[in-house]
């Protein structure tokens, strides 16, 4: 054939499924870790903050009387 070629490295001949499984597990574990951290930071913590903000200054008695005075409850009457 034409010219000299450099010495090629020997390809992996045995244990191909084992190395494929190892590589798959590492890739999947890293992707899962990244997604889990992102979910915690961007979704879960955000939601907890919104709930905390709402309940900081929430007066449930005032809300109850507001809804009652519009006549929307069946078991209590409005004030007038």
């Amino acid at each position, binding site marked *: 054939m034409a010219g000299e070629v450099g010495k090629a490295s020997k390809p992996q001949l045995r244990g191909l499924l084992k190395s494929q499984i190892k590589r798959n597990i590492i890739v999947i574990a890293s992707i899962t870790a990244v997604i889990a951290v992102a979910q915690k930071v961007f979704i879960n913590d955000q*939601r907890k903050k*919104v*709930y905390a903000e*709402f309940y900081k200054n929430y007066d449930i008695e005032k*809300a109850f009387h*507001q*809804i009652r005075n*519009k006549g*929307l409850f069946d078991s209590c009457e409005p004030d007038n």
Partner: protein
Amino acid sequence: MGFISNRSKYWLERVGNREMVGYGLNGLPMYVDKPEFPFPALRYKEPTAEIHSLYEKQKGNWKLLTREEKKALYRSNYCQTFAEFTAPTGEWMKVVGIGLIMCCFGVWLFILQKLFVYKQELPISFKPSRVRAQMRRIIDLQVDPIMGLCSNWDYEKNDWKVKRWNTPPNPFIRCPDDDE
């Protein structure tokens, strides 16, 4: 020769004159082009005198074979080249077409249902004035005040906090068709 199964007998009847050159796929005396296992049990074509002379020449230095002789040797041993039998068949177009036709059947069912099953006259609670009344009741009850519908409603201003493309108009504004 020992026990020959019916499947092997079937393929043996079709061998004819051809030479067996290996174990083949699972031991059957069959010729098949497979990219995963390209070592069929038989040569493809029946032997002739010219091919035999080429086989003799092949036992020597391969650099003395011309390109035409190499091609003749390949075609006598194999039916198609790798490029030929792994070429795309275009079968995906058939599959996509039949899938879309099935989707069309589903759409037809939907249309016939709207025409023949549901009443053409909608119930009274679908009228816009009734829908606005229901919206007012939902806002008064403070449904989903943290992350849902009423979290977007400003109770001091009596209007939506942020108006997007999908927020309904303000239901507390009086409209001419607000009947009893």
